[in-house]
């Protein structure tokens, strides 16, 4: 592998990825998804602000957050996401109570200690982002292998450089889109809900964006593996979507019949990724390490297949 080639290919592919039709679809899907989620969750907050102004009540962060926590959209979103995370840990009544207590503490951290609305938006983005990320990565190799355009690169750079260069390029492009998206949401929220200090919003938004970049890495590596193994972009997208959606669905419905099937969710980072928003730094570090571990495994498997196959 040649580090110079990796860097060149990464920059080239990230530069031109957005110019392609698929790149544009990814960009639009990412913005649409992020802004729709923000809009959906901003509505109750705006209502609270409007109502408070109409009643002449002084707007404080604590008051708005209290009311926000009672809003069905925010509450149900947070409960559903965090509750589903804890569900696999429930073994008996005592454990269930303990898990519920943990979720309550976690909820308090996300809604009370951090900008509540931004936390909720980030949690939902976290759930949907793997699907959006796959739109930007399903064609990392499959289209070029199908059209044989990759052959123009194969004679000039070794396969490892091409493989890692393209995955890195996709990560750079997605990282840029994520930073832009979360930056946009954070700024938008700040102007709409000025009672949060911009510093707190920016810090939490920046942290959320970094965590989203971190969590998108294993999914990108998975997309690279599947895209490098299947010559049809449509086939690649279909299989990626089935795998991404199938694993959590199988885990949720499987554990209803047999609890052990819940472990299936750990085939992908679904089972650990939300821990990146835990209050405990140890849990965050563990989740980050797990995400990097998944990334390394998927990269290894994808690279090994790409090295051996006919192109």
């Amino acid at each position: 592998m040649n580090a110079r080639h990796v860097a060149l290919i990464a920059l080239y592919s990230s530069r031109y990825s957005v110019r392609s039709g698929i790149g544009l679809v990814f960009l639009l899907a990412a913005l649409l998804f992020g802004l729709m989620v923000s809009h959906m969750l901003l509505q109750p907050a705006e209502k609270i602000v409007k109502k408070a102004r109409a009643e002449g009540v002084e707007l404080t962060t604590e008051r708005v957050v209290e009311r926000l926590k009672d809003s069905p959209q925010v509450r149900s979103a947070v409960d559903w996401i965090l509750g589903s995370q804890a569900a696999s840990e429930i073994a008996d009544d005592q454990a269930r109570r303990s898990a519920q207590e943990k979720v309550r503490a976690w909820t308090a951290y996300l809604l009370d200690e951090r900008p509540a609305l931004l936390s909720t938006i980030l949690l939902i983005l976290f759930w949907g982002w793997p699907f959006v990320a796959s739109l930007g990565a399903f064609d990392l190799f499959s289209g070029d292998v199908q059209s044989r355009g990759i052959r123009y690169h194969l004679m000039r750079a070794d396969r490892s450089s091409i493989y890692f260069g393209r995955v890195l390029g996709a990560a750079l492009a997605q990282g840029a889109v994520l930073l832009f998206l979360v930056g946009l949401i954070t700024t938008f929220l700040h102007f709409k809900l000025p009672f949060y200090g911009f510093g707190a919003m920016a810090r939490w938004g920046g942290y959320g964006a970094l965590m989203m970049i971190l969590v998108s890495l294993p999914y990108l590596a998975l997309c690279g593996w599947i895209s490098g193994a299947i010559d049809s972009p449509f086939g690649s997208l279909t299989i990626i979507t089935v795998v991404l959606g199938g694993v959590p669905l199988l885990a949720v419905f499987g554990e209803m019949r047999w609890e052990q099937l819940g472990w299936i969710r750990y085939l992908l980072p679904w089972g650990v990724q939300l821990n990146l928003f835990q209050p405990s730094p140890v849990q965050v570090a563990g989740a980050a390490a797990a995400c990097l571990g998944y990334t390394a495994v998927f990269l290894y498997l994808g690279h090994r297949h790409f090295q051996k196959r006919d192109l």
Partner: protein
Amino acid sequence: MADAALSIEGIRKCFGRSVALDAVSFEVPRGSVFGLLGPNGAGKTTLFSIVASFLRADAGSIRVLGVDVRHISELQGRLGILPQDAVFQRNVPILDQLTFFRVLDGQPRAAAEAEARAALEKVGIGAYAKRGVHALSHGMVKRLGVAQAFLGAPEVILLDEPTSGLDPQNARQIRDLIVELQAGGRTTTVISSHNLLEIQEICDHVAILDRGRLVTCGSVKAITAGGRRLEVTFGRPLADAVRTALAALDVVHAVEQRGPLRYAITLAEVAGSGGDADDDAAVARVLQTALDHGATPRAWKEGHSLEEFFLQVTGKRSGEPVDAG
């Protein structure tokens, strides 16, 4: 061959249960224009793809300029390829694509762009440098492919059917381009083609593949010289009497009509003969007999055409190697 640009040894490649290449071995001399021939499905493109490391061989080894192609990146800038049906990226200007190729070869960006521009100018599509490949006609895309293969003046160039699907004018332009770019003498060019006249015109060595096996390999001169054949073009079709007279000569084995005015005359092996002088005498007797019977030879040449040889050897069922010298 110590001075081989390309050395292929025992290459085998299967796709499932189908054997695409089986124990193919030959060498391409440095500085030659080498033709790779074979009917459809003979394995030419597969062999090219293995040389370029697009496909992995099941067995055997290939060395280009002494470098094992499994480490193809070591050949950076020394090997150029026109893949048969690879498509350029649609959303990237062609100048940017060629520039990027040269940057990968190790050139600084400014020099790479200058080289890419020069290559596009050379193949006559410089005006399209900033356009995408969608703006080019089929012939222009082929020329872009050739420009890409010759970019940076590599020492070995593989061209997989460079003129297929082109009209005669475009095909001629591509051939002229290959000959012109080859003129420096430093380059070894390997061309696969179905067009045997094209190969005979521009190649000095050929290898023929059939059903995945090497049938023959050698210099065009040696291949077309063999067979004790004489091809004669007359001013008008031969009367039966003339054909009978020619066939009756003891130096003639057979007379076959190969075109309206073209005849292939196979010379007989005569006991005690075999030297050049005897061959000359046999040719002289054939031509004199034709003249004596009022048939005027307009043109004649000894040996096979490459096409005849190709049809002869690929028509065999066994695909056993034929010694072409």
